[in-house]
C-alpha cells in the first residue's frame, strides 16, 4: 500500500514554476529516489512535504492522512523525518544532545515538571537515552557521542543527521542528497547504511540524489524530473534508458 501519495503538486515562486503537476506514490518499505538536473524541483518537493512551502495546487497524503495543510512542526510527529543538503545540525551541541532533541518529539513535556526535574522526567530521559543508543549502535557513532557538531568532519555530520532523523522514529525518511560532500569510500558505506535503515528498521526512504551509482544500487524505484516536471517513473534500468531522461542529462539545450 502506498505510504506517501502526492497528487498533481504545483508550486511557483514569483512566476517561476518550481513544480508542475507532479504526482507520485511511495509504497511502504520502499526506497524511492528522485533524480534530475539542478533546478529540477527535487528539493522543492521535499520542502513541500516538510510543509516549509505552501502548495499552489495539489494534495499530499501520508499514511492515509491529508497533510497538505498540516502545521510544519507537526510533520515530524506524524512520522516523517528529513535531512538537508548542507547539514542543518545544532552546531554548538553534542551529538548526543542533537539526537535527544529529535527523540523529544514523542514526549509530553511540561515546563513545571522539567523545571523541578521530577522523577518522571528522569525516567523518560533514561528511556529516551536507551533508544538513542540503539541508533548510535546501528550507525556506528559511539566514538562521537560527546563531540560538539562543529568539531566533526563533514562525513560524520551527514551520518549524525541521518541518525537524528532516525531518532524521530519515523515511518518515512527524506534524504536530501545524502552523498553530497562525501568521498567515494563514504558513499560506498552509505549504500549499506541506507539498506540497513530500510531493512532493519523498516523505514521507507525517499531520496534525492545525484550519484547514479548510489541510486542504482539502493533504489527500488526511481523518478526522473526536469524543470519541475516528472519525466518518467520506474526501475533504475528503465529510467536510465528513457529517451527524455537522456535528453535532459545530456543536453537538449536545457542543461
Amino acid at each position: 500500500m502506498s505510504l506517501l501519495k502526492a497528487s498533481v503538486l504545483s508550486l511557483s515562486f514569483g512566476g517561476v514554476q518550481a513544480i508542475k503537476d507532479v504526482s507520485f506514490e511511495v509504497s511502504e518499505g520502499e526506497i524511492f529516489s528522485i533524480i534530475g538536473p539542478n533546478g529540477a524541483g527535487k528539493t522543492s518537493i521535499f520542502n513541500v512535504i516538510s510543509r516549509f512551502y505552501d502548495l499552489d495546487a495539489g494534495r499530499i497524503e501520508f499514511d492515509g492522512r491529508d497533510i497538505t495543510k498540516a502545521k510544519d512542526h507537526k510533520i515530524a510527529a506524524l512520522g516523517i523525518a528529513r535531512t538537508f543538503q548542507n547539514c542543518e545540525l545544532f552546531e554548538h551541541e553534542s551529538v548526543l544532545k542533537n539526537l535527544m532533541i529529535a527523540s523529544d518529539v514523542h514526549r509530553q513535556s511540561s515546563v513545571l515538571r522539567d523545571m523541578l526535574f521530577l522523577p518522571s522526567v528522569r525516567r523518560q530521559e533514561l528511556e529516551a537515552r536507551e533508544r538513542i543508543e540503539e541508533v548510535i549502535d546501528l550507525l556506528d557513532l559511539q566514538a562521537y557521542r560527546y563531540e560538539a557538531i562543529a568539531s566533526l568532519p563533514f562525513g560524520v555530520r551527514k551520518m549524525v543527521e541521518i541518525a537524528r532523523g532516525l531518532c524521530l522514529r519515523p515511518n518515512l525518511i527524506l534524504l536530501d542528497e545524502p552523498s553530497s560532500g562525501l568521498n567515494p569510500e563514504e558513499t560506498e558505506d552509505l549504500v549499506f547504511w541506507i539498506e540497513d535503515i530500510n531493512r532493519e528498521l523498516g523505514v521507507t526512504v525517499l531520496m534525492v540524489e545525484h550519484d547514479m551509482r548510489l541510486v542504482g544500487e539502493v533504489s527500488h524505484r526511481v523518478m526522473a524530473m526536469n524543470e519541475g516536471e516528472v519525466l518518467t517513473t520506474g526501475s533504475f534500468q528503465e529510467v536510465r534508458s528513457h529517451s527524455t531522461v537522456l535528453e535532459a542529462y545530456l543536453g537538449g539545450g536545457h542543461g
Partner: protein
Amino acid sequence: MRFLFRTSHTIDLALFQHSGQVFWYGLLVIALLTAPLVLDPFYLGELAQVFIYAIAGVGLMLLVGYTGMVSLGHAAFLAIGAYAHARFMTWGMPFLPSLLLAALFTGFVSMLVGLPVLRMTGVYLAIATLALAEIVEQVLTHWTSMTGGFRGMRVPDAEMLGVALDAPRPFFYVCFAVLVASVFAALNLLRSPTGRAFVAVRDSETSAVSMGISLVRTKTLAFTLSGMFTGLAGALFAHRIGHLAPDAFTLLTSIQLLLMVVVGGLGSMHGVMFGAIFIGLLPQGIALARDVLPQGVANLPGIEPAVFGAILIAFLILEPDGIYGRWLKIRRYFEEFPLYRKDTFKRQQRFLSTERLR
C-alpha cells in the same frame, strides 16, 4: 587531567559530573552561607546586589545564550517585577506570595508582549524589545496612581516569620536562596526537553521545525521564562534600592544586563555568575582605581560608562567566549601542560552570506 568514566547513562543526567565538582561547589556554598558572620554589612549588600544581577542574568541567559534571541529591553521586566512587588506589598500582601506573584505577573506580561514581537528575528527583535522598554518607561512615568510617576514609590518593609528582611543579613540570605533556586530551576530546564528545544531553535530554526519543535511556542516560552526570572530579580531589587523611580530602569540598565551575559560568556550558567560578579563589583573597582590613578584621569566625569564600554569591546575582540571561556582555556592549559597547543581554541572565521535579495 581528569578522565570521566561513564558507567551508566544516569551520569549524563547528573547536575554534578564528578565528586570534585560537588566538593568545590559545596565549599563555595558554605563560604557564602558563613559570609554574613564575618563580612561588613556594606559588602553583604554588594554581594546581595551581585545575586540579584545573577538572577536577572539567568533569565536573560535563557533568552540570549540559549534561545539565541537578543533583548535590548530587559530593564522593562526588571521594572515590572519591582513595581508589581511593591504594589502587591503596599496592598498588604505578605513578602513571599508577593515575590512569587510579581514573578508570575512579569512572566505573564512578557508573554503578552512576546506574542506579537516574536515573529521578528535578530536585529529586528532587539530593536522591538528596545521600543517596548521605552514604552514601559513612559507608562511608569505617567501612570501616577499606580507607580507614583516621576517621584516614584516607596517599597514597603519586608518581613517574614517575624524577621525584618530588609536588614543586610536576612536580605543577603533571601537573595542567596532565590538565586540558588533560580539556578537549579534553569539547570533542570536545560537538561530536559524544554531546554533542548531552546538550543535547537538557537542553532537552526529550520532544523528545529523539522524535529517537531514549534517555533512560536518555544520562543514565547523562552521569552516568558526569561521575563519571569528577571521579574523575580526586579522584586528583590526593589528592596535593595528601597525607593522605585523610572530612572532606575533605563536603556542603560538593559544594556548593562546584556553586557553581563556577554562578558560572562554566552551559553553557560557559569557565565552568568562571572558576569554578575563582574558588573556587580565593577563600580567598586572603578572607585578603588580612582584613588590610584593620577588626578587628571581620576576626576574625569562619566569615566564609569567608558570603562564599561572599553571592557565590553575588549572582550568581544579578544575573548568572545567571555570570562568563563577564558577560565576554561586557562584550566585546559594547566591540565595539559606542557602539551598545550597554542591553536587549540583557534576560532574559525566565517564569511558572511545573507538571505537578502537586494
